């Protein structure tokens, strides 16, 4: 199990050090600093083993957070824990920065004590933690309250406390997708996948039970089979539209989802925690609707000159609008001058990144835009330029995987408000992950 947690600033000074087990000595703190933070060449692997001690670390802005152990533990669990710890801290004091950590170190130690016990991860749900770890001063709690907390922590539904009341029962559903792409210069897709997640904000009274339906092929197929084959029209509808169901490669749920039910009849039902949480994560690789296409044209015109032409085409319904579009065109390291012409947006040569950055604020569907650049080079025959790919970032208001929310039903048996009375909001956002085109 986890032996200790350390946090360092960018210079390698220790900000937080919490040791849970005796097998981790003080020298482990220095070992990590010397062997990972201070080494000249960057260490690129997230797990480092120094003197039979394993270090699992992540870096958030300029802060290194490391989990240390002498045992052979589940690495995925460590990273899950690290990310969860970061999430908890962010919800308490905002951005993770050296200053924030220094100002909140008492709180951080308190949190670390709560979410890890003798190296075993405990409840890390923000909502629940906030009920008994508060930033206000010590408040004497009545007996009832303390017993409530104990019940809460040890009870069956650890993520939601009882007796929540809202005047307006409301819930928000965000489908967030990240498209990753690698395309050849000729426009052939070399690899593409979508990583998506569903984030939910619930403001519901009591202990509501929710049912969630999506256009997953598997769910729909099994439904189709289980419902009588006589309802042919329904079956035709699903099969015929083709795009209406998607194949999900991978799926992962929040702990509140009843997995046994999902196993038996592929229905997603859960009692949601109060406030914001991530309901599920998924991944798809088939039939991805790529929102943008980049067409590069690179010509080396004689000695010391290069011409680059880049065309960006938007490939979605013309009624929709893409936003925050940024194309990053790498330039050779011996560039000494760049002239740029573009009709739409703003383009700039950024010497510090060795790249041309082209920004377009908004762009409608089914349109195209062009940039041409002339690059002057310093004569240098020795090293051939490796031509790194052109990368792109954007945001579009639909799910590139074709993911659809079919329904979300809320049942609260004790308090009598019905499904129809709750107000539901659904939003789709498609963002770029690593969206690259070779040139």
């Amino acid at each position, binding site marked *: 199990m986890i032996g200790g947690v350390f946090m360092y600033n960018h210079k390698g000074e220790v900000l937080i050090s919490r040791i849970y087990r005796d097998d981790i000595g003080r020298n482990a703190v220095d070992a990590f600093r010397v062997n990972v933070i201070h080494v000249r060449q960057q260490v690129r692997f997230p797990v480092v083993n120094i003197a039979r001690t394993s270090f699992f670390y992540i870096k958030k802005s300029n802060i290194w957070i490391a989990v240390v152990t002498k045992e052979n533990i589940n690495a995925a669990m460590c990273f899950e824990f690290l990310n969860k710890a970061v999430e908890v801290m962010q919800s308490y004091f905002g951005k993770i920065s050296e200053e924030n950590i220094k100002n909140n170190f008492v709180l951080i130690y308190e949190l670390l004590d709560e979410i890890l016990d003798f190296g075993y991860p405990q409840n890390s749900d923000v909502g629940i933690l906030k009920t008994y770890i508060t930033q206000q001063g010590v408040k004497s709690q009545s007996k009832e309250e303390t017993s409530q907390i104990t019940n809460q922590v040890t009870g069956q539904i650890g993520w939601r406390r009882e007796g929540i009341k809202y005047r307006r029962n409301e819930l928000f559903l965000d489908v967030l997708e990240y498209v990753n792409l690698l395309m050849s210069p000729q426009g052939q897709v070399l690899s593409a996948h979508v990583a998506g997640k569903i984030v939910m904000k619930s403001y519901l009274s009591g202990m509501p039970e929710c049912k969630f339906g999506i256009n997953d092929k598997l769910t729909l197929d099994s439904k189709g089979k289980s419902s009588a084959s006589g309802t042919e029209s329904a079956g035709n509808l699903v099969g015929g539209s083709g795009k209406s169901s998607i194949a999900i490669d991978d799926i992962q749920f929040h702990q509140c989802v009843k997995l046994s039910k999902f196993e038996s009849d592929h229905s997603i039902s859960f009692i949601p925690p109060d406030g914001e949480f991530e309901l599920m994560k998924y991944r798809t690789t088939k039939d991805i609707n790529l929102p943008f296409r980049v067409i590069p044209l690179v010509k080396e015109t004689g000695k010391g000159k290069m011409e680059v032409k880049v065309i960006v085409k938007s490939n979605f319904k013309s009624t929709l609008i893409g936003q925050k579009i940024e194309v990053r065109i790498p330039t050779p390291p011996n*560039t000494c001058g760049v002239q740029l012409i573009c009709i739409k947006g703003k383009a700039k040569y950024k010497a*510090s990144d060795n790249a041309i950055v082209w920004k377009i604020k908004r762009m409608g569907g089914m349109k195209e835009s062009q940039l041409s650049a002339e690059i002057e080079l310093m004569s240098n025959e020795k090293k051939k330029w490796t031509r790194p790919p052109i990368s792109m970032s954007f945001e579009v208001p639909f799910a590139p995987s074709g993911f659809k929310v079919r329904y979300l039903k809320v049942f609260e048996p004790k308090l009598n408000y019905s499904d129809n009375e709750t107000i539901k909001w659904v939003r789709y956002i498609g963002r770029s992950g690593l969206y690259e085109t070779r040139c």
Partner: protein
Amino acid sequence: MTPPVKGDGMRGLSVFISDIRNCKSREAEIKRINKELANIRTKFKGDKTLDGYQKKKYVCKLLFIFLLGHDIDFGQKEAVNLLVSNKYTEKQIGYLFISVILNHESDLMRLIIQNIKNDLSSRNPIFITLALQCIANIGNREMADAFAQDIPKLLVSGDTLDTVKQSAALCLLKLIRTAPELMPTGEWTTRIIHLLNDQHLGVVTAACSLIDILVKRNPEEYKACVSLAVSRLSRIVTSTYTDFQDYTYYFVPAPWLSVKILRLLQNYPPPEDPSIKSRLNECLDTILQKAQEALKSKKLQHSNAKNAVLFEAINLIIHIDSEPNLLVKACNQLGNFLSHKDTNLRYLALESMCLLATSEFSHEAVKKHQETVINALKTERDISVRQRAVDLLYAMCDRTNAEEIVKEMLAYLETADYHIREEMVLKVAILAEKYAVDYTWYVDIMLNLIRIAGDYVSEEVWYRVIQIVVNRTDVQGYAAKTVFEALQAPACHENMVKVGGYILGEFGNLIAGDPRSSPLVQFELLHSKYHLCSPQTRCLLLSTYVKFINLFSEIKQQIQHVLKQENNLKSSDVEIQQRSVEYLQLSMIADADVLATVLEEMPSFPERESSILSSILQKKKPPMETIGQKEEKIEKTTTNVQNGHEAKLGQVQSIANVQPVDLIGLNSTPPSTKNHTPTAVTPLKSDQEALLDIFGGPVPAPVQSVPVSNNNLDSLFSDTFGVPTQVVSEVSQFNPILSIQDNHMQFIFTNVDTLFENEALKIFIKCEFKQNLARLTLTFLNKTNFVFQNFSVESTGNNDLVRVLPRALETNAISSQSELAQILNVECVNDFIECPQVLVQFSCEGTQSKFELNLPVFLNKFFDPVQMDSQTFFTRWKNLANPGQEQQKIFKANFPIDKDRNSQTLINFGWSSLTGIDPNPENFCGAGIIHTSTQQYGCLYRLEPNRQAQMYRLTIRSNKESISKRLVELLDNQF
């Protein structure tokens, strides 16, 4: 001289540097650098011409980025442009950039060299110095080629400034290191040497380093520097510290220069000119005396400088090694340091004393400090100092103090640091062996050694103990008794068990009379350790047990019981299993006679140098090496005791087990020379012929013709060998087929042939040489129908220069038509002329015959060929120019002059035949080293044929007159 302008700070540069310093992360740093690089690129590419200041600034930035660890692949051109500038700062940055960044195969090199040339010929001394520094910093071949001419000129020219000369000397030094063949010769020599006389001490110091390396490459040419160096040294030494203002360092006049001169002098033997010699001795004496004076300052630098000079002076004294007076004084001075409070001084004192101890003059003086050294061993806190103390004790040990030193070292061993223990064990073992008068003392010491530091006793050490015990009959009983007692300790080291097992197995019978160590007690004692030992030791113990069966038949039952045990008979270790099975069978099947033969006591080991010595030599660091050289040269022995012990058993066993079948169907194998199995004595004749055929000797004459008369046989030997035996015969019916002397000379070039043959006896010889050692295998074939009895081969012992040691024979009878092999170990002690001889004796039918046999061992057999290039050859050739070292002979060709044949003859002679060395391709030259136990001799030769006159001129040079002479004799008339 224009000092660097103040306030010439480049603002852009300092802003950039502070930006970089303020970067919070590596990524930020890289971003900033990329930005700066792009900026510099635009600036350099831009149409505007940059002025000198800007160029300098950007080049500086590039340099800074490079030093941060980023690749810089542009800006060289701008840097080279800076070289043209007339401003010191710009030129300096240009040179700096070039020396730091430029890689050697840059295409700008030519331009740079041109610029450097311009600067070298400039009037401004600062520019010249900058250029020289740049040359030295780059210091590649190209630079060496380009400036090999200019720099020596600068160095000796009258109108160069002193500082420039100084740089020039050091620059030349660097170039000579990269390109030694470019070193100035001829006219430059004297002028460079005379730099030692320069007024400016800085120049002298720099020149000293230069001359030192030149001297190392070509000592002869620079011999003249000795007298100059001595006079310079004496001027420094006799001066007071006020004389050299700039070169006095904490009241010591010119310490660096003094040290360099003293080192320089160590390249040469002591000066021959008595006046120089006495002057040098005076200097050294003064230095020693100055060391006695009170310190002029309490600062550490003062004593450091002073001691540096002192230690170098002592090194020189040791190097000269002929001034007892100085040596003793030096020794006393070092003695003072032994108890100095500075650890470094103590270390150095011990180290130097180690060298002093090897000199015959100061050995006694060193011995006076024995107490202090032993004390140092015990109380010293620094381990490296303790190690030096051990070295010194080892070096100062001789017959008089050996006992005490060994005792002290043994005592110290118990507390010694782990990683010097093994070395100490070796040292103790060597000293104990070398200076043992009383071998019981030796046995005691060695057993103690194993007891105290068993883990650190290497194989060689305990092998050696056994060798000595086996070879010395007088200590065997004592050794058996002592190991028996030692084994009684409850916990014994495994090495002790090994030694104990071996010795009791061999000599257990010597103490069996005492009821306290009766056979059964011995056996049970050994067997109590058996289960605690490694498989290797168990194997050895099993052999001991089977030897016990032979020695004490009364405990046969117990031993057989042990051999029958499951864990032996079915051991997972194959070796243990095999031994148990075989020994068990042997003990059950064989009768007492066979057992006695098979399990006979081990024969003495051939006397050879201890292998421990060689192992310590391999390990050792400089001080030990010098000691090693003074000791005898040793061959590393490969066979070890344990193998010997087993081998014999194994051999005999295979004969005993498979006897009848094998020996009859023996056609394909050569007959065994071993005669103790009764069936092995009559090998088939065809076999013998085949055997001889293999060796290339003639087929022996038909057996029938051998005469039956004893008298005849006797006379035969007396005639052939010219040594009278009792009966002088009237007629010698059988002329020897080959006369010994004729045949003898052919062995100069071959190692395997028939040495002698007549109707009665044939002697075949095979020689193997390795460095200073040789092994001769003499095979005697008895062609008569009689048995030669009491056969023996002994060394005549009248040749001290080549020692011959016959190995003990397994049998001393040669039956009719069979042969016997005698192995002789030969050691070349020093160069020799007379071939070694052995005395061969035997009796036939009651008549004694004896004759002396010349062994074909010549000086050239101990040659190792040496390959070298032309330059080294002629350098060495020139070095051996003293009268007597060269021997020459002109002789007529015996054979038509054939190049290939001559070359082959020379190679067969043992040295190398090198091609492409001599300017005349007809000539032959080459080199070789003669190994003797005392010394190695390098020999060089040139053979110049003259085709018209059909004559040869042979010139041989070596460092000893007698060697050159002998080699000429041997090679004479061979062409």
